[in-house]
């Protein structure tokens, strides 16, 4: 039996409705309990901010393209190098650190759960292998369906049940968690070097549109009762004027699920651009945020851009090629047969660039203009907008108007004309931040019942104690203290053990992988469909029997069983 008592914690737990009470937290064998024995280990939180462990609902830390970002960038590995010490392996890298680098740094910031944003089913083993080497967090993998031929056929047949059958089988087969659509249809078009420019354009060689793919997938997700909704990277990422596509996409879903959103739009900053060229690009964050404000069925994440160098990586192959023709730096592309694509290129976001400055402002506008923090998650689409180590600075910017004004002075002056950032004086509270960095994620991902994102009795004892006393700190003025506090916890607890203390990993705990087993009735089993099996063997380059991910890869898996309606 292992017990810990955390005393004098300033707790904010939005899921439980605890808004900043000084209280004690009892932990036994990895779970939050009512009380512990008098002899257990005691941690004095000293009135410091205590939150459930952080959850990143959209990050790229494991798998083929992340590793390709590392592989092609020895120059990046010259930063962030630390030797093996204590319980820590060595680390390297800044924009695409090694798995241990990611894991330790997230842990230092109090994060205990990460969702890898994009896993190609065919390359799932790779993602799971890296999950096993990301020891400080529990992991989930959103699985890519944007160019999935089997799904396309079901969409073409307008057969939601069949679409659900494909999605359900694939998630179970590759130990995936949720449905990710990245530039739906566009990645298939990129197979022959094309892209799509509207959600109503027909996918080449297929009689369907992105709208059809999105709509069918949403309904199939709900049919399957998946914990998470469709997780969508809209078409036209990064194109001036793309806010129209985003608004049209926002109009697709009706409110189908009482427990969570019906559609999760990711890195919306990259999808809220007005104008028609790089020369007249402007922010349309107000229009996008207004739309979100009228749609409780939608959750977005920011995809905030922060200045400096980083690596962009996405399944959106055609977008990365466009970016390459602008930057003319290195370009990697990796199309995955019958499923999806991907691209990786390094970028540098500069304060001197009007476009980059406007991008920076749009992310902040979105977070400040979306009224309900449960509808806007704090992300950078790590590492696309910036490495996640910049989250504390983003928190500072959202909590302090003064800091924003100071920063706005440093960026390209067109930002003031082309965005509304300078006119917004909303300052987010500690509670808003708690929602946007853990509680909201737990709800959006549907993992509250797994004991994530809150400190209710029975919850997993994932806890972050930050060196800041909210009742004695004015973030509006003392934003630097707030940033410092979120950069490094006093303690990070995972499964009831202190795993990180003052920035040092002091012990590892075997992590878990949450995956969905969609229990399908026999008549929905695609393995029994001759058409499915025959097509698979003709057009995939591996045997079906070698495609499915073996149990060995999810030894510490948490199987989330779902059942169709």
């Amino acid at each position, binding site marked *: 039996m292992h017990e810990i008592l955390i005393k004098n914690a300033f707790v904010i737990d939005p899921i439980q409705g605890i808004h900043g009470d000084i209280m004690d937290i009892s932990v036994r064998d990895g779970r939050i309990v009512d009380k512990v024995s008098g002899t257990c280990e005691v941690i004095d939180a000293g009135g410091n901010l205590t939150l459930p462990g952080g959850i990143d609902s959209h990050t790229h830390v494991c798998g*083929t393209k992340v*590793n*390709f970002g*590392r*592989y*092609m*960038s*020895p120059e*990046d*590995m010259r930063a962030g*190098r*630390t*030797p*093996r010490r204590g319980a820590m*392996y*060595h680390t*390297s*890298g800044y924009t695409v*650190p*090694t*798995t*241990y*680098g990611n894991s330790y740094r997230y842990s230092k910031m109090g994060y205990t759960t990460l969702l890898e944003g994009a896993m190609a089913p*065919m*390359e799932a*083993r*790779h993602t799971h*292998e*890296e999950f096993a*080497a990301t020891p400080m967090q529990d992991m989930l993998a959103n699985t890519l369906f944007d160019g999935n031929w089997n799904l396309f056929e079901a969409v073409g047949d307008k057969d939601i049940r069949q679409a659900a059958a494909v999605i359900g089988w694939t998630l179970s087969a590759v130990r995936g968690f949720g449905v990710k659509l990245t530039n739906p249809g566009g990645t298939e078009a*990129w*197979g*022959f*070097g094309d892209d799509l420019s509207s959600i109503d354009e027909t996918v080449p*060689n297929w009689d369907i549109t992105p709208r059809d793919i999105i709509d069918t997938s949403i309904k199939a997700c709900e049919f399957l009762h998946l914990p998470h909704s469709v997780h969508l990277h809209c078409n036209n990422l990064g194109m001036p004027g793309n806010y129209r596509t985003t608004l049209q996409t926002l109009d697709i879903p009706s409110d189908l699920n009482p427990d969570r959103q019906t559609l999760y739009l990711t890195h919306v900053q990259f999808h809220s651009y007005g104008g028609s060229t790089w020369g007249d690009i402007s922010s349309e964050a107000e229009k996008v945020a207004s739309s979100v404000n009228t749609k409780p069925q939608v959750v977005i994440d920011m995809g905030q851009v922060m200045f400096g160098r980083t690596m962009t990586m996405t399944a959106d192959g055609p977008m990365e*090629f466009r970016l*390459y*023709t602008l930057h003319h*730096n*290195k*370009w*990697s*592309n*990796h*199309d*995955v*047969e*019958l499923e999806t694509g991907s691209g*990786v*290129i390094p970028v540098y976001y500069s304060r001197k660039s009007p476009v980059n400055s406007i991008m920076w402002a749009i992310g902040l506008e979105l977070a400040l203009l979306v009224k309900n923090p449960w509808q806007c998650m704090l992300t950078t689409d790590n590492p696309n907008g910036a490495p996640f180590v910049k989250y504390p600075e983003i928190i500072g910017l959202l909590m302090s108007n003064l800091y924003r004004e100071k920063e706005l002075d440093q960026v390209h002056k067109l930002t003031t004309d082309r965005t509304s950032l300078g006119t917004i004086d909303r300052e987010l509270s500690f509670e808003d931040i708690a929602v946007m960095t853990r509680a909201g994620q737990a709800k959006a991902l549907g993992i509250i019942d797994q004991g994530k994102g809150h400190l209710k009795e029975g919850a997993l004892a994932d806890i972050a104690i930050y060196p800041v006393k909210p009742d004695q700190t004015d973030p509006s003025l003392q934003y630097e203290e707030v940033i410092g506090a979120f950069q490094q916890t006093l303690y990070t607890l995972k499964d009831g053990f202190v795993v990180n203390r003052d920035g040092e990993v002091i012990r590892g705990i075997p992590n878990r992988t949450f995956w969905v087993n969609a229990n399908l009735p026999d008549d929905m089993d695609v393995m029994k469909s001759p058409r499915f099996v025959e097509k698979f063997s*003709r*057009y*995939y*380059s*591996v*045997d079906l*029997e*070698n495609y499915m991910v*073996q149990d*060995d890869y999810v030894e510490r898996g948490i199987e989330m069983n779902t059942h169709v309606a």
Partner: protein
Amino acid sequence: MEDKIRHVICPYCGCLCDDILIEMTGGEISGVENACTLGARKFLDDAGNRLKGPIMRKGDEWVDISYEEAIDYAVKVLSEADRPLLYGWSGCMTETQAIGAHLAELIGGIVDSTTSVCHGPSILAIQEVGHPGCTLGQVKNRADTIIYWGSNTIEAHPRHLSRYTNYADAYFFHNAFRERKVIVVDVRKTVTAEIATEFVQIDQGGDYHVLSALRAIIRERGGVIPDMVAGVPKAQLIRVAEICRQAKFGALFFGVGITMTGGKYKNIRNAIEFISELNRYTKWTISPMRGHSNVYGSNEVFTWISGYPFAVDYSRGIAFYNPGETTAVDILARKEADAALIMSSDPGAHFPRVCSEHLARIPTILFDPYPSATTHLCTLQIPTAVNGIDAAGTAYRMDGIPIMTRRFMETVYPTDTKLMQEIYDRIRKVKEDA
């Protein structure tokens, strides 16, 4: 007793064909279907050649020793060395490769894989300009134009053409074989060249020049190109460039014929830039023809652990990478290493002579099921189970697709994963006690 095992993965080359059928009779492999000659020989012929147990060189004699003694020796040598080299890994599964990287970290060694003498230059090129690639099924279903450059595919990767390119079923063609064009570029007329629609024979060391010329032609600057480039007439270059531009989906595969010559990584870089340029007009991808079954796995594992795909030097605790300085051939040729661990590879057969001489001079521990050229050079050889036959694990195909190999035979041999883990644990204890 006869038994048929399907969907076996061939552990020979980077194609990792996963449709092999093995027939077993009385616990022995009696037949192999679907494999090429190379793979079939590995399944059928190698079995009788395995070492029975560890062997150690004592003076002018080879003596049999126990696994326990062998591990004791390995622990002692590796924990005491000032600059140990841990080389090979491409025949190991990722599970072992990961332990290897952590072992190098633990003992302050250099970990390098056979990459450095295979597609290391390709990685250096990718680190300069990136890599527009794809999975092999993408080529199979879509490509109407294939280039094999410096790759004698029919001899080195015999099933590549039938599984992934020329002779494979394609979703987007009715008669793929008739509709595909194959261009072969090589310095000699190989058997692969004989099936080409267009064979471009270049002078030894002329790859870079030819690629530069092709890039210029694609950029509409063909005017500056002389009538002949490295033995290739300009007219043919213009014709090839046009075929490339007209392709709906093109795929260039390159072999060690271009990574080992002249400018080495500069050749590959030029090829990648040629392909990147073609993507402004149509769709093209480029892919290295990886030799060892799991060489790509070693690159992937070393990358997520250390940030670098091969040639990682941990002598100062942190990871340092600089091929040419931290690569196995250079470390041995400069006589830096004072101990070596060779994992299922054969530098004795594949390294320059000065490297082999140095291996014979220092304590060299070889993990290999079979006697090889390196056997004669090493101090200790430890046989293990064979990955893909009586041991299983994760391997990465040449295009990055991870596959779990199958273990389909009982064995008396320990796996390299188990042995490596034991060595790691023992050395960690030594270091912690110190």
